[in-house]
């Protein structure tokens, strides 16, 4: 797929004929320098934006022609999001934030029990009734991970999940994501410019000037196209 912003002489090719597939249960890192197009790629995979050309398949479903409502439903059921700034809703409590995707889906059966289990797994079961703006950045990111997992999505997409955290907390969040991925056999696609902290992962895709390469060192790169 490709993504082009602007028109005519102001055209910017954010993604240039990128094509790859990710298998279930893989922990994939998307790395690249600032402005390389990695977040754009994540937005395409997360159906938050549409490619100019090409298609995104998730669980063998072509998402290109889905209506806005279908895309919302798809995002809700098949995708989990973890953002750089956690993006919790500060008007809600920790538990309510985790429950929100389930409530949007309209399936509240055992939702609260699942949410508490997830919060326990991320070590925040003692904070469930706190307002989301009353917890630390690291705790908020853990809540975001729990929220991303509550609907048992096909893919969890994380955009710079440690970008706003100190190195100690970053390390903890990374380990937590890897643990959850392993424990739940969950596909994780993580965009980061902080390759080193992640240690061993299943795959690394490097984005450079809108093109995607397999691997993390330019000399080792195999073009993904």
């Amino acid at each position, binding site marked *: 797929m490709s993504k082009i912003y602007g028109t005519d002489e102001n055209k910017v090719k954010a993604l240039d004929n990128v094509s790859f597939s990710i298998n279930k249960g893989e922990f994939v890192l998307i790395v690249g320098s600032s402005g390389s197009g990695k977040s754009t790629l994540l937005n395409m995979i997360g159906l938050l*934006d549409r490619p100019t050309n090409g298609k995104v398949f998730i669980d063998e479903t072509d998402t290109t022609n889905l209506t806005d409502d279908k895309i919302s439903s798809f*995002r809700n059921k098949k995708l989990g*999001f973890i953002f750089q700034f956690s993006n919790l809703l500060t*008007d*809600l409590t920790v538990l*309510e934030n985790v429950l929100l995707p389930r409530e949007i889906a309209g399936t509240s059966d055992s939702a609260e029990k699942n949410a508490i289990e997830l919060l326990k797994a991320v070590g925040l079961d003692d904070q469930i009734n706190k307002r989301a703006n009353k917890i630390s950045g690291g705790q908020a990111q853990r809540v975001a991970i729990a929220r991303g997992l509550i609907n048992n999505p096909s893919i969890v997409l994380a955009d710079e999940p440690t970008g706003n955290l100190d190195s100690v907390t970053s390390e903890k969040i990374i380990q937590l994501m890897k643990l959850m991925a392993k424990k739940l056999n969950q596909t994780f696609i993580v965009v980061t410019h902080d390759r080193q902290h992640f240690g061993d992962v299943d795959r690394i895709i490097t984005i450079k000037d809108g093109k995607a390469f397999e691997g993390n060192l330019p000399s080792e790169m195999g073009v993904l196209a």
Partner: protein
Amino acid sequence: MEYRLRLAKRMLFNKKGSLIGAVLAVTIGILVIHVNFVIFQGLFDAIVRDISNYRNGDVLITDEEDYIDKSDQALVNWFERIPYVEAATPRLSSTASINMTKFGTLHEETRIPIVGVDPLRDIRASTVHETVSEGQYVFSRNSIVLGSNVARDLGGAQVGDSLKVKIIDRYGQDQIKRLVVTGIAKSPGGQGFDYSVVVHIDTLRDLMNRDGDTGSIMVKLNDPSKASDVKNFFLAAFPNDDFIAETIEESAEEQLAGFRSGIAMINMIGYFGMMSSAFAIVTIQMMLVNGKTREIGVMRSIGATRKDILIIFIFQGMIIGAIGAGVGTAAGLGYTFYAKETKMSFNNSLPLEVSYNWEKIIQTAVLSFILAIIASLYPSYRATKLLPVEAMRTV
């Protein structure tokens, strides 16, 4: 549905300034309508009340031939047999010239309205006697009660003064009679006989050479809502006479018509005020939407549809409308209660006739609630148009 309502409430209640602003906008809109209603409808009803109490009763009987020649005694007795009728009394009217010498100076006033009353019956059907602030009401054939303005124009006439009344009778002849002032009438708001004089009906009949004639029969009911029934009953009972029977609304129509259009205009101003409140809600909710752009983006990214976002902000409009309608109605009722209990008047003028018009109260509350929802539609629609990626970039 539950989470959307919860989110709507939390988002709104965590922005107390916006909530208070929006609720105040609705409250003030409703309060303006209540205050307008209390003052202007109260004034209108007070005028109707005074016209009814002082001049026309609830049903006024006149004759196409200007004068009723049927026995007033018989007509009054006929009316007072109807259970809805409190009392009935005959009246006769004309104009007079009055002169009086006070401290050696002759004061003369012409074209003064003069009303003849049956004192014994009048005090049961009318409250004019209660407006006599000095002296007492007409009690004999040679007594006269002056309206306060007439007394002033006659050089400060007082109880006990003697004056001459001149009337042109039915044959065009001047008829003069000397009468003694027994009372001065002054009504709050001047709807009474402040610009008239009151004499015994038989005295006026003599002066007018209209023995046995009556100008009108004023009928006071114990249940004014039965006025039309009494009127129709009367007209059916006397089909061959040329009587005219009118309810207070009909007989005072000329005096009230201007007022009615004034009230309609004031109501329009009130409703425009309410619409201004709706614009205030639009502005405040736009601020709320702008303040929650990032949250909207997050909700969209985790699966909320445009409809979900629309419903959240419409719920906010409903919450603002419900609280505003409740507070506004409570404030309006409080003001109405205060006005009623204190018999509110302005500059010691006419005391307002304050009433609780529940139909209008509910209608105003419901209208403001609906307006708040309508006002929330545009901000809600704008919220749905935010793209998740763009919205989440907002800090």
